[in-house]
């Protein structure tokens, strides 16, 4: 069973609705037993990095999540700030991330961008695969996803970059390190492409 981790943030039902459309059952839960038994985890997150990091801390689930992801190698998909939490930390805040993927989150560098580009980066943007991934199996058309963010990942190991997108400059739009995956965009709002991605995650 896929468990959407309910640590007190985000739009959990949208993710569950999209999974349902893909014909996949999921539960939204903060229960330790339920999480422990999950064969996949989705870590959501919206808003400020520290708000999410603090709620995650308060949930008391951090150690259990560490064990699931790092010891039991359960596939994890972080979404938006949920993806950002997979890294070591963010310029936006002071609290640490989970640190499962080496690197951190930085604000879009306006000085490296053409004039007139807006921050937040908001809207549909196409992406390109940086390495093969089962998450993108069968995605024939050029996929486009819905992004809303002012910060993006800057990884220490480029092999962990799964998708690249360009907004002012090229940035990591998705991360993958072994069983740990994250997407900066919102698959639950990205129509058929998001549907396919979530279905692929469910079938891993």
């Amino acid at each position, binding site marked *: 069973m896929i468990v959407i981790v309910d640590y007190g943030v985000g739009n959990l039902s949208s993710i569950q609705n999209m999974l349902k459309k893909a014909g996949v059952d999921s539960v939204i839960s903060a229960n330790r037993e339920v999480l422990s038994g999950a064969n996949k985890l989705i870590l959501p997150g919206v808003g400020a990095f520290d708000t999410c990091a603090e709620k995650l801390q308060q949930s008391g689930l951090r150690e259990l999540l560490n064990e699931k992801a790092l010891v039991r190698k359960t596939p994890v998909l972080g979404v938006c700030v949920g993806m950002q939490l997979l890294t070591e930390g963010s310029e936006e805040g002071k609290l640490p991330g989970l640190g499962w993927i080496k690197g951190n989150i930085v604000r879009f560098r306006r000085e490296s961008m053409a004039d007139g580009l807006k921050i*937040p980066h908001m*809207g549909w943007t196409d992406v390109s695969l940086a390495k093969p991934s089962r998450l993108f199996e069968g995605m024939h058309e050029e996929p*486009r996803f819905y992004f809303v963010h002012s910060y993006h990942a800057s990884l220490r190991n480029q092999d962990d970059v799964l998708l690249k997108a360009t907004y002012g400059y090229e940035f990591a739009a998705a991360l993958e390190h072994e069983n740990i995956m994250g997407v900066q965009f919102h698959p639950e709002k*990205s129509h058929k492409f998001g549907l396919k991605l979530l279905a692929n995650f469910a079938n891993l």
Partner: protein
Amino acid sequence: MLTKRIIPCLDIKDGRTVKGVNFVNIRDAGDPVELASAYARQGADELVFLDISATNEKRKTLAALVKDIARHINIPFTVGGGISSVDDVGPLLEAGADKVSINSSAVRRPELLDELANAFGTQCIVLAIDARKINNQWVVHTHGGKTSTDKKLFSWAKEGQERGAGEILFTSMDHDGTKSGFAIDPLEKLHNFLSIPVIASGGAGVMEHFTQAFVLGKADAALAASIFHFGEIAIPDLKKYLLNQGIITR
């Protein structure tokens, strides 16, 4: 490459869409969920739902409607109308809305924008501004355009951005309903003045108007209601047309 967004807007009263809607291929044009699903299928990039219910009592049904909408559509949507506190917003976001649109209540108490941005993040706060040109100045109006204020469009938009709005939805009351095109000059000025995205609203009549809003007005998105509701412009046709004009949409 970021694409330009096309956003149909639905007015909701007591849980039903208002404005006569003449939309092909749906059973119940008054049902916001059905109309929204049709737009999503056609390729709308986002949707805006404006609740124009008169009383707070009736507004309580809004969260239930939002939940129903979220269950059926898989594109981002914004909900607005009568939102005046952090407590109003939480239930809407929990029900599945991606953003909320704030108008009169932010003019009345601008700190609301700071509070909302702190509580939920700037990405979900849309500052809607209705303005009309009076004596060569764009004067901000509230309460559906009925009340004029001492605020001016550009300084208010800038203040909104600084307080935490993630996006500006600018409606020119002079253009709204005229089908004569969007207000290009103030759009371009907003674009140059702000670092957050701007949604153009008011005046869409023909497809060419969208090109003008994107190319001349530099808008990030364009919103319209009746031309979509009445089937005067079909979204797939509009997107094909824009592509031919060199404007990339989804």
